[in-house]
């Protein structure tokens, strides 16, 4: 798997949203679909593409199948962290400059 494959897979905004849903841990297709304005089969299809790109993996959990960000898919981890730290530092700056507490 290359970074490029991963980036291409995430170029689709809906697919990116599906991927984002897994930021907090493993989720079943139904749980992801419930939080998005797309159908369950559509979510399944996006997950399939993300899995092919090495971004997500799945495992059985009881009777359900859950999806999670693939720890072997280093590209996905890096993409996630890059975005995460970007968001975090933006929020940090906003807080630092709030109420003129900078002095």
């Amino acid at each position: 798997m290359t970074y490029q494959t991963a980036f291409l897979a995430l170029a689709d905004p809906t697919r990116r949203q599906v991927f984002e849903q897994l930021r907090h841990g493993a989720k079943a297709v139904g749980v992801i679909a419930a939080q998005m304005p797309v159908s369950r089969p559509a979510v399944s299809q996006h997950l399939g593409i993300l899995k092919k790109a090495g971004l997500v993996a799945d495992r059985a959990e009881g009777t359900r199948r859950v999806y999670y960000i693939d720890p072997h898919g280093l590209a996905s981890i890096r993409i996630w962290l890059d975005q995460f730290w970007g968001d975090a530092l933006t929020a940090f700056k906003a807080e630092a400059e709030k109420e003129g507490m900078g002095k």
Partner: protein
Amino acid sequence: MITIAPVRKQVTVSASQQRAFTLFTNEMSRWWPATHSILKSPLKQYVVEPCVGGRWYAIGEDGSTAQTGHVIEWQPPQRLVLAWQLSGDWQFDPELITEVEIRFIAESADSTRVELEHRNLQRMGERAAQVRGMVDSPGGWTAILEAFKKCATA
């Protein structure tokens, strides 16, 4: 060996070096993106214990806690190195250590450049492979079960 480029970010804030360091560490819950908590319950506080070896953990509104890592280097107000110990599926793994170094560079009395580097990311993949290998290999579960059997029949 696979390597993966570190994540590097920087931001310049209108705050003194000391203020920036304090806000980053002691008041992390004020700015940490709430959507990124590893807790089931909403985040109440994010704690960085102010010393080398101090824990870095989240406390939820329901009182539950979840560790993210620990403090590797503590040099207020210039520099901080945190161990980020979350695996690819966001579980705390004491055997996994990736480093987040944060440098606070005073540009003036009330302006600070914050540079962040998150490195050793390939360890997440190595560790995941290790865990899988351990469980699959004869030395993994088989050995554990053998030991259990010995114990149970002793």
